[in-house]
């Protein structure tokens, strides 16, 4: 097709071909800084990655991060959407205000939270101080660093869930509520049996979308903590970067990347299938 092929060619050249190249490299011991001597090593890179305890640690960190952040923003985002949907006035303005964090670049968000969470002159510690609490080293302590990362991601992406949940709440036909109030159904009953089932499919879309994004996350980690302190906030994405660009083990990093891509493909397939089912149903 003359109309489709230019776009597909660009995608083939910039997405498919690089991935195939990475697939090829993942079976070699290639290093981007070494000029000669690239040998096939079979599945060695894959076994190295899959059996490495370092990678297991990163996978756990990523899991905690993804589950923590997505859960928090889903609860918060849905709550805000629900509260907004119950207001009669000022809803448009409120929604617009709530959406601001989502539109900002992760760079801006990361930098700004780094400043606010600074142990010495950060405004968060300053406010805690005036309430009588001691200083917290948000980004430089093992315990709090991952938590801070989750908080920042939640701050930025709660509006996303809110926006989609709000769209779902719109779709609930008013007559259902009218019928329920004729039956004198309780508020909780209305929420549990009308609102939630109607909004749930769309909310699930948003949650899956966010999970994929959180799994890929790199920029916030890079700016806020650089994986530290120690390796406590190193996600899989960040670890791949270290292996590839600081260790220059390009072959290993490619295998690592391919494994991550496989995870993303599975998640994306689930997402797209569910979306498709929803559109047809």
């Amino acid at each position, binding site marked *: *097709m003359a*109309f*489709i092929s230019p*776009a597909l060619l*660009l995608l083939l050249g*910039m*997405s*498919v071909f*690089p991935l195939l*190249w*990475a697939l090829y490299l993942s079976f070699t011991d290639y290093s*981007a800084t070494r000029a000669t001597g690239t040998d096939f090593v079979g599945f060695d890179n894959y076994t190295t990655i899959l059996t490495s305890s370092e990678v297991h640690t990163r996978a756990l960190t990523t899991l905690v991060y993804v589950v923590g952040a997505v859960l928090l923003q889903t609860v918060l985002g849905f*709550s*805000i959407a629900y509260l907004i*949907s*119950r207001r*009669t006035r000022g*809803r448009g303005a*409120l*929604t617009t*205000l*709530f*959406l*601001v964090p*989502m*539109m900002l*670049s992760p*760079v*801006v968000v*990361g*930098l700004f939270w780094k400043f*606010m969470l600074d142990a010495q*002159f950060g*405004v968060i510690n*300053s*406010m805690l*101080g005036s309430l009588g609490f001691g200083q917290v080293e948000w980004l430089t302590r093992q315990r709090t660093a991952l938590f801070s990362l989750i908080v920042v991601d939640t701050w930025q992406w*709660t509006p996303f869930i809110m926006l989609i949940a709000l769209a779902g*709440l*719109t779709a609930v036909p*008013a007559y259902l509520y009218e019928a329920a*109030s004729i039956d004198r159904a309780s508020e909780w009953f209305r929420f549990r049996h009308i609102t939630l089932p109607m909004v749930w499919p769309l909310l699930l*879309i948003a949650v899956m979308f966010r999970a*994929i994004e959180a799994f*890929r996350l*790199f*920029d916030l980690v*890079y*700016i806020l903590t650089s994986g530290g302190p120690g390796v406590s906030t190193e996600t899989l*994405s960040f670890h*791949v970067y270290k292996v590839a660009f600081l260790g220059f083990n390009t072959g290993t*990093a*490619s295998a690592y990347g*391919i494994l*991550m*891509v496989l995870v993303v*493909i599975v998640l*994306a397939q689930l997402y*797209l299938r569910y*979306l498709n089912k929803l559109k047809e149903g």
Partner: protein
Amino acid sequence: MAIAIDEAVPGPVTDDAPSTRRRGGGARRVIEVVLLVVLAVAMLFPVLWMLETSIKENRDVYAVPAKFFNFDFTLDHFKDVFVGADGGRSDLSVSFLNSVIVAGASTVLATVLGVPAAWAYSRFTLKAKKDQLFFILSTRFMPPVVVVIPIFLMYRELGLIDSKLGLILIYAAFNVPFTIWMMKGFVDEVPSEYEDAAMLDGYTRLQAFWKFTLPLLVPGIAATAVFALIFSWNEFVFAIFLTSSQEVRTAPPAIAGLIGGTTVDWGLVAASAVVFAIPVLVFAFLVRKHLVAGVTLGAVRR
């Protein structure tokens, strides 16, 4: 139809309960409003703090405890964003200009490639159309850190490392899936009968598209392009790995580079972040009607 924010809320869920329940309802409403206000303040505080820091004198920026009011006002940080220490153009202003060029060119490229493809996917019966569309969207989900490894090697061979063209190409590839999905939704809304009628009048399919469908698509194209522009403008991972020189670097890595040294000029960071964020917020406000579709890469529309 895409959902507008103003419409994206159900009709008021009025409490039709008899008047005995009114008082409980009133207290509940107060609680809800208070909750909303608290949440809104929490969400907006970082943005306001960034704005405030960008107009504070340096000694107030680092004040402990933090000064919320009564700080000395200055516009020096904003001057520093654009004017270099030697009085000429600052490095940051060069990277802002680079961002404009890269984001603009990649958006144009993605739009030119994506719109005809979206039209074709909407109008023609193609083999495995659904699979093709899903494949296209799934390329957008690839982790950038992973994609950047082979892209880096490929660009090194082609001499595209540290060039604006390299960034433009990768951003266009990154935006094409979005453009196709988003535009397909808009094309679906234009009845294909318009084109059929034009073809009965002797126009070719292409002429019919050009003369009758395209003009109706202009608002949709504009909204889609604005989202593509925002994505490219905000992008950081490819920018930091594929460019290194001051002349090519876009704004996100340049701003992130401000915290590299031992001391950080947070006033300057805040001012450049504000300058960087304002166009995005303005554009986002312009396309607020299409936000739901835009932020889900065109996948969710109702």
